[in-house]
């Protein structure tokens, strides 16, 4: 239509935003399922199992439960700030995802890149800006609940977030020095190529200390175990979101998981090559990897359907099987396979990071608050700073030696 041809940016952006929102919200919901399953298996038990085959409908049940709960507001609270806080947290968490490139910018529709909503030249700075603003959601929630535990939890949580934000930013500057640009797509393009022909030139190899600092600061920034004292159940009831019920609590929950996803996406982009594949381009069989993976998954689901499912779970899992096999078959078509190559690798790396997050959650005990602050200021910050100085030194050394 004429309108679409005259305003390609607007139309394509709207479609991208709608699709991205849908995908991210579904991903959030199933991230909760993933976390409960993995933590359960670490603790030698099954996770959600009964609400749908293998507990796959559990997020739906949880969502419905949150919607139908009674929505109470503490009487003496500041109403405006009380309602603002969860909206702010969720809005900021979802805004950050708009910057993330899921695939190469060469795939275009109507002249607009398909896999990134906003390809900013200062993408990384903007992401840090959004992360900085995320402190408000926590602080305001704690304060407006007008109660001791949330106030304490909110103060501690926001102090922790502010402290680890500095280390987060510094640990990334080493990558910036190597990449020379703040644009995500350019940072990823700078990681193409291979050392010795088969080791990918990802930034994690020269910046391994930066990567470790980043991961630690990121776990602290998103308030996850082992850094989640301010919201641990045995310590502060539920921290800053104690007084929130029903949908507002669900918004905080979603904001925390969205922050997790954002930080994992950032880790893959900066350190692990984003949508680049780890195998050299000459190995053309890697095009069929997504399709093969999906078909294998479909075969496993088929086996499960036939052998172990009973009753309605059998029907649900049969649907899942057909989706997997269908998706796998579609992904084996060469045109489709070359397009989904980028997102496939990106998603795989992000899922690996999320698994790492959930793994540490199930394994490690939590820090005490003073240990946490000590660690952030006295260990992590000097190490990130030292990483930055050493990186700068190493980068400037060849040209300094040349100029004498």
């Amino acid at each position: 239509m004429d309108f679409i041809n005259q305003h390609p940016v607007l139309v394509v952006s709207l479609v991208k935003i709608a699709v991205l929102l849908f995908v991210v919200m579904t991903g959030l919901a199933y991230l909760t399922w993933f976390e409960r399953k993995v933590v359960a298996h670490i603790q030698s038990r099954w996770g959600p199992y009964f609400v749908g085959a293998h507990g796959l409908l559990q997020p739906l049940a949880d969502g419905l439960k949150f919607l139908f709960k009674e929505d109470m507001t503490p009487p003496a609270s500041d109403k405006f700030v009380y309602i603002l806080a969860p909206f702010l947290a969720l809005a900021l968490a979802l805004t950050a995802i708009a910057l993330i490139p899921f695939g190469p910018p060469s795939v275009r529709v109507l002249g607009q890149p398909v896999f990134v909503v906003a390809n900013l030249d200062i993408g990384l700075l903007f992401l840090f800006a959004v992360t900085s603003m995320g402190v408000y959601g926590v602080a305001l929630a704690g304060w407006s609940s007008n109660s001791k535990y949330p106030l304490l939890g909110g103060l501690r949580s926001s102090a922790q977030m502010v402290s680890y934000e500095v280390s987060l930013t510094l640990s990334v500057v080493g990558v910036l020095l190597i990449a020379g640009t703040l644009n995500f797509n350019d940072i990823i393009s700078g990681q193409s190529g291979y050392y010795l022909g088969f080791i990918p030139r990802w930034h994690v190899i020269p910046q391994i200390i930066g990567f470790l600092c980043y991961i630690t600061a990121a776990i602290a920034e998103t308030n996850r175990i082992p850094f989640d004292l301010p919201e641990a159940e045995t310590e502060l009831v539920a921290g800053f979101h104690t007084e929130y019920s029903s949908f507002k609590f669900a918004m905080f929950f979603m904001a925390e998981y969205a922050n997790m996803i954002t930080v994992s996406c950032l880790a893959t982009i900066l350190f692990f090559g984003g949508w680049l594949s780890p195998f050299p381009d000459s190995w053309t069989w890697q095009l069929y990897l997504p399709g093969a993976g999906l078909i294998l998954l479909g075969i496993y689901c088929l086996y499960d359907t036939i052998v172990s499912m009973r009753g309605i779970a059998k029907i649900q899992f049969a649907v899942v099987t057909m989706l997997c096999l269908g998706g796998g078959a579609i992904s084996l078509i060469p045109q489709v396979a070359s397009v989904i190559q980028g997102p496939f690798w990106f998603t795989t790396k992000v899922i690996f990071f999320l698994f790492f997050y959930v793994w540490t959650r199930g394994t490690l005990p939590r820090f005490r608050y003073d240990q946490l602050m000590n660690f952030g200021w006295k260990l992590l910050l000097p190490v990130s700073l030292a990483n930055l100085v050493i990186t700068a030194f190493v980068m400037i050394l060849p040209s300094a030696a040349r100029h004498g």
Partner: protein
Amino acid sequence: MVPFFLFFVCALLAVAGAIVLIVAWEPIHSALSLVLVMMALAVLYLLLGAEFIAAVQIIVYAGAVMVLFVFVIMLLNAGSEERTNWSKLAKVAGLPLAFFFLLAVAHFLSRSAVGANIANGAGAVSNAGVSTRALSVALFQQYLFPFEATSILILIALLGALILARKDE
């Protein structure tokens, strides 16, 4: 057309935020409206092509300095302000006078050589704006001494705040 629309929306938000800042009873509402003003100003900086400054404004000013303000308000449990009636003279004569003064300033500014600059296209920086690289080159070569001086200033502020906050033992 879009820049004009964006400019007016952000200008309106900034002025509304400033008015709420000076009119609100609760300090926390003032703090939140100041954050709104800073975000509106960040968008205006983006309109003016200063991307790095917009990002620094949000990261440092709205994301750290204002968080400090919010912390202090929360810690001190700052309550509502006492309500007073501002003097009648201020309300009756002050507001119209301020409005006319503003009109005079706007008139003279738009007539002057300075104000007509962008409209002529005279200061035609490319619409892409100032790159971070150019800004950092200026910062580290031409303005190196002020840069180092501000870092010492921050160190002094850090030490000062630390000493002030320490309990006497």
